[in-house]
């Protein structure tokens, strides 16, 4: 059954049962509904607090929707009608490092055409044979250039099957007539804008012809070529005109075959499935099997069908699901805070109504009737809050997507807001269900009352020793903890490994409280949990465990639980210390004594409220810390990512640069300006880690490094295989031994506290991976994993090894170290390189600038997350608001007494303000301390072994944390101050007479 339908059905069933019970039990229903509207201000605050959970769930789903929509649209725009590509294996459209496809005979297309005409390809409605190359382009008129344009040699007749091209007025272009004269070309608006070309202009494209000599190993002779084309039409960046989202040139197939000296051959067949741009991909599986059966009957070059649209759609689906997961996981803290709020509210409502409940029970109402009464009321809360929360979530998601849009807007990404109705339904249902289940639990708890004590409003006696059932629960937790711990080791899960002992310790504390003082038992248990999570000790003892974002969530929950437990069981000591500390300020003492005594007496209520604050502030602090680390890690990121190079250059694969060092030495503007130049040739193949199995095989870029790279690079290593002591040992081994390779940082298995990189395979140093070469699978051992993952991602080997497996290749990736490292000089060098190697389509990156920009974007996203998570504070603030409103009512008589014995109005007001501030400040302090504590680990991940505690202290974003604290306090004051003033205004004589 569809997931949405299942959850809708579940919610319908649950609330239908509640509804039916409410219809049958008239008195409980009436009492519940009247209680619901009894205190309207309370109702508003309760709904405000409860809707946060739904809002968080809905917003995470809708953000996922928007991103999925954006990604999918971008795929539809880039591929148009194209659903599959047929080419030789090894060539892969999604990897633009290579871009070159091997040529194959035109007869393959003819066979497919015949098969299609004979109805053997019912899932296919279009086939387009192409020559596809990427080339540098220049406009002789404007002297403007584009280093990497897509040149498509197409058969204009067949081209119609893959959709139309539209000119600027929106008319369909007659491709046959536009390309009828050899030397004519159609270009898209993107390219026209890059080189400022107009219809009728001539453009020059540069490309290279390879002539292989008889040397062994074969080294191609490279012959630079130039071709002028006449621009007949400029087409819109839409449909086929936007193919691959690039700057496109469409020329006749015969011309391109002639240019590249490949008569009678093509290197790509684009396939369109039956259906439109969006629905075509649904037919991919059948289309592939039909095409496969036709191709199987042909001998010669084996061809690969790349299911490009389906693959990309699956990829973006995974990506948006992952982003939804990140948001949901981050939002877990707010959801948990929301659950705590529901419990707190119900316990408080129960306290308020205790005498009524006692009387109801005395009059004959059963316990289940009380549960029903609360469930009816709670269900109404749940439904109202979920309904409003769904729209609040929509608004939050809109804010997030708009904010993402402004962050990425500069990079040219458009981020339209989009949502699926399903997401709203799921958000509503999950929110309502979570609230309902919490209400059910809370109702069950509060219905357990002693009738006499309830009627006389006598506090429940504190049990000297916990009951046997309590001890049994403790024993269960201990057993569960042991199981989870060993399960974690068996499944290599850091989350389980860390959670098990926390449960064990908690259960141990519960059991011990039977025999020793509960304060001692829980103090030891909670302190041990804090130590287990925060102590700078590697408990894994060399075990290799995998961890992800869930680790952050679980650590956070257990840290907060332990800290609050420790605080609450030692509250009396804390109170005494505070009283003594402030004893000299005599005017404060009476106010402080009352302000601190109430929260400490209502331990459950206070603990829950502290927990709400601490959870949210903990997450916000961790994010603030990570943002600070990022801002301050440019230097360490530079060392990790740059490998001591300043510039990375990519030449166009169609126009590789032979012997770049020598080439540079001939050019006056570049000569003697570099200390180091290294290069890599690039290919692409399907790769999988032996540990993960063949099914995990994905296309990966392969790099063949030259001698200079092995000798001079300073890339730092994330991990090295046992037996290798230094990076140079690793590189020397890779250079000498063709069975050894190095992979980039995104492949490392043990990435903490962050989402896994999509599309990367996972491996550890010392493990084997399999390259799927044309000659069959080849095993390689990963001898090391570099930290770097920003500029090249994939598998690094020697150029000789790459050439051996994938044929002779010329370098197209270059690393430069400037003689003068001044950033302005590096930037000018970068521009000079692009200008000098224009005809090779050289594109350069100034590494420091890219890292800086990357970190800035990353910081902006983290800031956004901070705001998103800060929304959870609404829960804490609403919780405290309700408590204060309730406290004023609850304590009216006491306020009267206090006023009578000498408390001035402002002292009463200050008592309430101090009380709420004390709770919020304590919660905030706990959250900040735990957040900073956990961040110390993350700090190690950022700065590695060179990280010192002093530097860590310097990196704490004190101002940011102070701001968070102040904002939280200010909102808390806003939510509680009116109650404090109301309390101060109470006339003592009336207060003394007051009865609820």
């Amino acid at each position: 059954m569809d997931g949405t339908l299942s959850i809708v059905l579940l919610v319908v069933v649950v609330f239908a049962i509640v509804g039916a019970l409410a219809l049958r039990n008239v008195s409980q229903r009436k009492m519940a509904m009247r209680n619901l509207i009894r205190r309207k201000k309370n109702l508003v605050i309760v709904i405000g607090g409860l809707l946060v959970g739904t809002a968080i769930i809905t917003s995470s789903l809708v953000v996922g929707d928007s991103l999925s929509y954006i990604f999918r649209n971008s795929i539809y725009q880039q591929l148009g009608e194209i659903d599959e590509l047929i080419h030789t294996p090894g060539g892969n459209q999604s990897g633009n490092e290579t871009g070159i496809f091997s040529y194959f005979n035109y007869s393959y297309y003819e066979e497919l055409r015949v098969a299609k005409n004979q109805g053997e390809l019912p899932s296919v409605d279009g086939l387009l044979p192409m020559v596809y190359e990427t080339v540098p382009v220049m406009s002789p008129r404007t002297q403007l250039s584009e280093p990497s344009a897509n040149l498509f040699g197409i058969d204009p007749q067949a081209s119609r099957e893959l959709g139309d091209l539209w000119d600027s007025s929106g008319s369909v272009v007659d491709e046959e007539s536009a390309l009828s004269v050899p030397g004519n070309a159609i270009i898209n608006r993107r390219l026209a804008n890059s080189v400022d070309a107009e219809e009728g202009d001539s453009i020059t494209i540069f490309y290279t012809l390879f002539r292989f000599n008889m040397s062994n190993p074969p080294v191609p002779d490279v012959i630079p070529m130039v071709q002028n084309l006449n621009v007949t039409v400029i087409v819109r960046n839409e449909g086929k005109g936007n193919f691959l989202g690039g700057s496109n040139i469409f020329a006749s197939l015969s011309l391109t075959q002639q240019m590249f000296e490949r008569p009678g051959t093509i290197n790509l067949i684009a396939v369109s499935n039956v259906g439109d741009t969006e629905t075509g991909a649904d037919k991919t599986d059948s289309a592939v099997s039909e095409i496969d059966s036709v191709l199987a009957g042909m001998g010669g070059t084996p061809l690969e069908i790349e299911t490009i649209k389906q693959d990309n759609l699956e990829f973006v689906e995974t990506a948006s699901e992952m982003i939804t997961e990140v948001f949901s996981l981050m939002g877990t803290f707010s959801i948990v805070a929301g659950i705590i709020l529901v419990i707190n509210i119900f316990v408080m409502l129960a306290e308020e109504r205790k005498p009524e409940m006692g009387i109801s029970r005395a009059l004959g109402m059963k316990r289940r009737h009380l549960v029903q009464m609360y469930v009816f009321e709670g269900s109404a809360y749940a439904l109202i809050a979920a309904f409003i929360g769904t729209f609040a979530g929509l608004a939050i998601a809109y804010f997030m997507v708009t904010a993402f849009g402004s962050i990425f807007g500069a990079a040219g990404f458009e981020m339209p807001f989009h949502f699926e109705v399903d997401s709203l339904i799921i958000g509503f249902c999950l929110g309502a269900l979570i609230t309902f289940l919490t209400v059910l639990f809370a109702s069950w708890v509060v219905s357990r009352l002693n009738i006499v004590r309830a009627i006389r409003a006598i506090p429940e006696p504190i049990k000297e020793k916990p009951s046997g059932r309590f001890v049994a629960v403790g024993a269960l937790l201990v057993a569960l903890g042991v199981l989870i711990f060993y399960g974690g080791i068996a499944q290599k899960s850091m989350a389980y490994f860390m959670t098990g002992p926390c449960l064990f310790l908690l259960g141990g504390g519960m059991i011990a409280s039977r025999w020793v003082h509960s304060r001692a038992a829980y103090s030891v248990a909670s302190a041990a949990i804090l130590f287990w999570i925060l102590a700078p000790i590697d408990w894994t003892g060399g075990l290799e465990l995998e961890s992800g974002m869930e680790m952050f969530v679980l650590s956070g929950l257990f840290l907060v639980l332990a800290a609050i437990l420790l605080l609450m069981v030692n509250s009396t000591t804390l109170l005494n210390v505070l009283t003594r500390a402030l004893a000299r300020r005599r005017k404060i003492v009476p106010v402080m004594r009352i302000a601190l005594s109430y929260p400490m007496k209502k331990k459950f209520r206070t603990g829950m409220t502290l927990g709400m604050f601490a959870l949210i502030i903990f997450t916000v602090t961790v994010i603030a810390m990570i943002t600070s680390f990022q801002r301050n890690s440019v230097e360490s990121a530079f060392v990790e990512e740059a490998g001591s190079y300043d510039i990375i250059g990519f030449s166009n694969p169609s126009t590789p640069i032979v012997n770049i060092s020598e080439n540079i030495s001939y050019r006056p503007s570049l000569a003697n300006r570099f200390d180091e130049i290294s290069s890599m040739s690039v290919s692409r193949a399907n790769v999988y880690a032996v540990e993960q199995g063949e099914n995990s095989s994905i296309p990966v870029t392969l790099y063949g490094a030259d001698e200079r790279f092995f000798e001079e690079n300073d890339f730092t290593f994330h991990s090295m295989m046992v037996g290798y002591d230094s990076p140079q040992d690793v590189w020397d081994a890779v250079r000498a031994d063709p069975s050894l390779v190095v992979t980039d940082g995104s492949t490392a298995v043990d990435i903490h506290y962050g989402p896994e990189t999509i599309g990367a395979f996972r491996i550890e140093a010392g493990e084997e991976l399999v390259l799927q070469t044309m000659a069959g699978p080849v095993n390689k051992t990963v001898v090391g994993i570099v930290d770097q993952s920003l500029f090249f991602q994939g598998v690094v080997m020697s150029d000789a090894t790459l050439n051996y497996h994938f044929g002779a290749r010329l370098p197209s990736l270059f690393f430069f170290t400037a003689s003068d490292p001044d950033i302005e000089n590096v930037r000018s060098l970068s521009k000079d390189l692009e200008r000098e190697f224009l005809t090779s389509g050289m594109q350069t990156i100034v590494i420091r600038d890219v890292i800086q920009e990357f970190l800035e974007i990353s910081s902006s996203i983290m800031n956004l997350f901070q705001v998103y998570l800060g929304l959870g504070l609404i829960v804490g603030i609403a919780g405290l608001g309700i408590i204060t409103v309730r406290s004023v009512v609850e304590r009216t008589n006491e306020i009267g007494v206090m006023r009578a014995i000498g408390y001035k109005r402002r002292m009463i007001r200050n008592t309430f303000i101090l009380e709420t501030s004390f709770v919020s400040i304590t919660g905030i302090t706990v959250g900040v301390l735990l957040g900073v504590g956990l961040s110390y680990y993350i700090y190690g991940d950022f700065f590695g072994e060179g990280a010192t505690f002093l530097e860590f202290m310097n990196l704490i974003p004190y101002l940011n944390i102070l701001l968070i604290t102040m904002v939280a306090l200010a909102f808390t004051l806003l939510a509680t101050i009116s109650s404090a003033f109301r309390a101060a205004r109470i006339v003592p004589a009336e207060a003394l007479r007051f009865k609820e």
Partner: protein
Amino acid sequence: MTNKVVVQARSLRKVYDIGKVQVHALKGIDLDITKGEMVSVMGPSGCGKTTLLNCLSGIDDPTEGHIMIEGQALEGMSDDKKTEYRAKRIGFIFQAYNLLPVLTAVENVELPLLLAGVKLKEARVRALKTLDLVGLKKWESHRPSELSGGEQQRVAIARSLVNNPAIVFGDELTGNLDEETSMQVMDLICDLNEKNKQTFVIVTHDPAVGEQAHRVLRLRDGLIEKEYRPIHTG
């Protein structure tokens, strides 16, 4: 007993507006209470006993009339001044004891001292001494919920006496106690009055309590109906 007037009330009126209805709780009371005197105010429910006590102690304002306590007029005082005055010179004992439930017995007792600006250490010593006076020193660290009604009221008495006030007002201070405990509490009050010359104004509807005072004021419909000095046989 000296003749110094501690509390003086003239033409005291109090009108409550309850919706559209005006309730005349006090209709013109004239009253003098001298130092060391123990006065009980008696009368049926709704006759204005508690209102009179509230007005005399400054926790409620009369609609008309004048009140002087220790020679100071209450009507001209700001709320803060009145509160300060109450903290230093007036003690209260309530029917429902009205101890602060979150504080221990000794903390409840020392609260008026802290409000008067006494140092924490000194306040603790004096509070313990006063608790001793009411026979509850060993219960100092118990919270109100851990004490019986009589014990709670004794703590409340200790709280009302701890800062040596000029006058102690008691509102139905035995109302929640059984007969035997009521008598024990009244014995304590009488003892304190006699030994310390402490002035007490006690509102009660219980003749057995009221008759123990030096002077009884009987209120009816907001006016003093009758005033007499009971003959003590004990």
